[in-house]
C-alpha cells in the first residue's frame, strides 16, 4: 500500500492498534494509561493488554470510580498527568562531591525516547503549556525537561466521552485534538481512524499491516462523535475578558468564602498537568562527602512557599487559593500568553472537599 504523509488517514482494526503499539514499544519507553489500584493511571506500559479498554472513569467533585463500558478508548484522561514523566516529582539536578575542602559537580541529564500513548486533547494542550514554561518562554530553558521532551512521540486519542468534571470545551482545548500529535486515534463503529500528524508518525504507521485507507464516512463519524461528546459538556464561563475581570476582583470578599472550605492540602496542584512549581532540597550522604540537589514538586498552598524571613507572605489560606486561581486564569496569560488551565478537571475530582474551580471562577468573575 502507498504510504501517506502528514494529514493522511487510515482505518485500523484493534489488531492494527496492537501492532502500532508493539512497533512503538520497540523504539520507545511507552507511557500509557493502565489500571492501578482502582484508578486509570499514566504508567510505564510494556504490554498492550494493560490498556484499560472497556472501562470508563466516572468523576465528580471529590469523587472517582470506574465502571465497565462497551468499547475500547471509552475513558477520559488518567487520574495523574504526563507531567509526572516530563517534570518528575523528584529529580536530581546536580551531585556535589566534597574532597579536601573542594567541591566538584556532576550533572546527569536524562535523554530518553519517550512515547505518550493515548493522550487526550486537554493534556496535549497542557504539554504545550509546559513547553512554554520550561523552554520557549523561559530565558533559561530547562535542560532536564528538554532532555525528556526532546524525542517525545505523541499518540493522541480523541475523547468520545466526557466525565462530569471535564470542561475542555470551556477552555477551548478539546474535546477534539487539533495539533501537536504524531498520530491521532479516534474510535469509530467500524474500527479506529488513525490520522498522521508528522513524518515519523507516517513512517511508523507504514509498517503496520492491518490497515486500510480511511474514507469520507470515517471522518464524518469522527466529527459526529466529537460533536456528541462536546454536547454533553456545559460552557461554564466566558473565557474572553476573563483575565481583566479577575484583575478587577482581587479584593472580592468571595475569596474568604473559599477559606471556609479549602484545607490547603495541595492535592489540586499535584494533580494539575500544568502546575510546575518546585522546591530544591539537599539530600546528603551521612559522611557528608556527597550531597545531591534534588528538585521536588512544591505547591503554592504550602505554608512555607512564600516565606520571607520569618513571615509567610500568604498566611491566610484564601490568599493561597487566590494565588492559585489568579495564576491559572490571569497572571499566566501575562507570563506565558496562554491560560494555565486546560479544563482537565483533575483538581475538581481530587479536591477532598469538592471545591470546583469552574464554579469558583464563575462566582468570582461573573457573579
Amino acid at each position: 500500500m502507498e504510504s501517506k504523509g502528514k494529514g493522511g488517514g487510515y482505518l485500523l482494526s484493534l489488531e492494527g492498534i496492537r501492532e502500532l503499539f508493539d512497533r512503538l514499544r520497540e523504539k520507545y519507553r511507552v507511557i500509557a494509561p493502565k489500571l492501578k489500584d482502582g484508578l486509570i493511571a499514566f504508567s510505564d506500559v510494556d504490554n498492550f493488554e494493560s490498556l484499560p479498554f472497556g472501562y470508563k472513569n466516572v468523576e465528580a467533585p471529590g469523587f472517582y470510580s470506574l465502571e465497565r463500558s462497551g468499547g475500547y478508548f471509552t475513558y477520559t484522561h488518567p487520574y495523574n498527568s504526563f507531567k509526572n514523566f516530563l517534570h518528575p516529582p523528584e529529580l536530581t539536578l546536580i551531585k556535589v562531591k566534597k574532597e579536601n575542602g573542594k567541591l566538584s559537580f556532576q550533572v546527569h541529564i536524562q535523554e530518553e525516547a519517550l512515547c505518550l500513548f493515548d493522550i487526550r486533547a486537554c493534556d496535549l494542550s497542557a504539554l504545550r503549556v509546559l513547553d512554554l514554561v520550561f523552554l520557549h518562554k523561559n530565558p533559561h530553558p530547562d535542560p532536564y525537561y528538554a532532555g525528556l521532551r526532546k524525542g517525545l512521540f505523541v499518540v493522541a486519542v480523541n475523547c468520545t466521552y466526557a466525565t462530569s468534571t471535564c470542561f475542555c470545551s470551556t477552555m477551548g482545548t478539546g474535546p477534539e485534538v487539533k495539533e501537536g500529535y504524531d498520530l491521532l486515534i479516534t474510535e469509530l463503529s467500524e474500527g479506529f481512524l488513525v490520522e498522521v500528524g508528522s513524518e515519523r508518525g507516517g513512517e511508523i504507521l507504514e509498517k503496520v499491516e492491518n490497515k486500510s485507507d480511511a474514507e469520507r464516512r470515517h471522518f464524518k463519524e469522527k466529527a459526529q462523535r466529537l460533536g456528541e461528546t462536546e454536547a454533553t459538556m456545559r460552557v461554564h464561563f466566558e473565557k474572553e475578558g476573563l483575565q481583566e475581570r479577575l484583575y478587577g476582583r482581587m479584593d472580592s470578599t468571595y475569596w474568604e468564602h473559599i477559606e471556609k472550605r479549602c484545607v490547603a492540602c495541595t492535592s489540586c496542584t499535584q494533580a494539575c498537568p500544568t502546575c510546575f512549581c518546585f522546591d530544591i532540597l539537599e539530600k546528603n550522604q551521612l559522611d557528608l562527602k556527597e550531597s545531591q540537589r534534588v528538585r521536588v514538586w512544591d505547591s503554592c498552598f504550602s505554608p512555607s512557599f512564600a516565606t520571607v524571613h520569618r513571615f509567610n507572605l500568604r498566611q491566610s489560606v484564601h490568599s493561597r487559593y487566590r494565588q492559585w486561581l489568579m495564576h491559572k486564569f490571569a497572571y499566566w496569560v501575562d507570563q506565558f500568553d496562554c491560560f494555565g488551565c486546560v479544563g482537565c478537571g483533575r483538581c475538581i475530582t481530587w479536591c477532598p472537599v469538592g471545591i470546583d474551580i469552574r464554579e469558583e471562577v464563575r462566582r468570582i468573575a461573573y457573579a
Partner: protein
Amino acid sequence: MPTLENPYLLKAGRVEKVIKECEGVYTFHVRTQEPAYPGQYNMLYAFGVGEAPITIASMGEECIVHTVRAVGDVTRHIDQLREGDYLYWRGPYGNRWAIERAYNKTLLIISGGLGLAATRWVFEEALNKPIKRLVHLYGSKDYDSLLYRYLYENWSSKVEFYITLDRPDPRWKGKVGLITELLKELELDEDTIVFTCGPDPMVKACVRILQEKGIPQNNIYASLERHMKCSVGTCGHCMIGPYFVCKDGPIFRYDLIREYFERKEV
C-alpha cells in the same frame, strides 16, 4: 535542539578578603572575572545546606563583593568562610538599576538596614555619573548594625549622605528616628529619581511621602526581596502578581508593581 546551558551549575571563587561589618554580618571579596551590573544578585551555595540569593554589593578589582547576614542555614555557613576558602555560586541574575534615568537630575537613594548592600554599588557608580544632585538616606535599627562604616567619610565628603538610627545610642552623635522622618525633611524637586531597598513596610511608607512631595511613581524603583529557589523563572516561589521577582526584578518601577506590592498577601 542545541545543548542547553545548565542554569544550576556552580562556579567557584577564592575569598580574598573578609570584613566583619557587625555581629553576624560579614563582607566577602571573592575573586571572579564574570561581568555583573549594579542591582544584580547571585545564588550563594553552602554544601549540603542549600542556596540563598545575595545581592552583589559592589565590584572590586577582579572581585565581587557580597555582604551576608547570618539569619538561617545557608547564610550561617557562608559567614564562616575565611580568606583562602572557596565560595560557590551561580549567577549573576536579575535586572539592573536604571541609572541613566537619573542623568542630569536629582537621584535619591533610600536604604533600610541590609538594603544598603543592594544600593551600595549603584551609589558608588552614581558618584562618577552626570547626576545633578545625589542624596542617600540610610536607616539602621541601631548603632551596632551599621554597615560599611569605613566608607562613610568618603561618601559624605562628596555628596549628601545621611544616616539615621531607629534607636539612640551614646556613641552616636547623628540623627535618631525613622528614615521616613529624614525623608519628610528633605527638599526635593518633582523630577527626582528614587532607588530604594529595604523592608517592605519601609518602602511603602517612603513611597507615600514621595508622592506627597509630587514625585511620580514611575520615577521610583524598588528592589524587592522574595523567597527564591531557582532564580531562573521556573520554580514559581518568587511570584508577585504576574511578575517573577527573580527574572523580571528584583528591581521594579513602582507604578508597575504597586497593585500587587501594596495589596495584602499577594
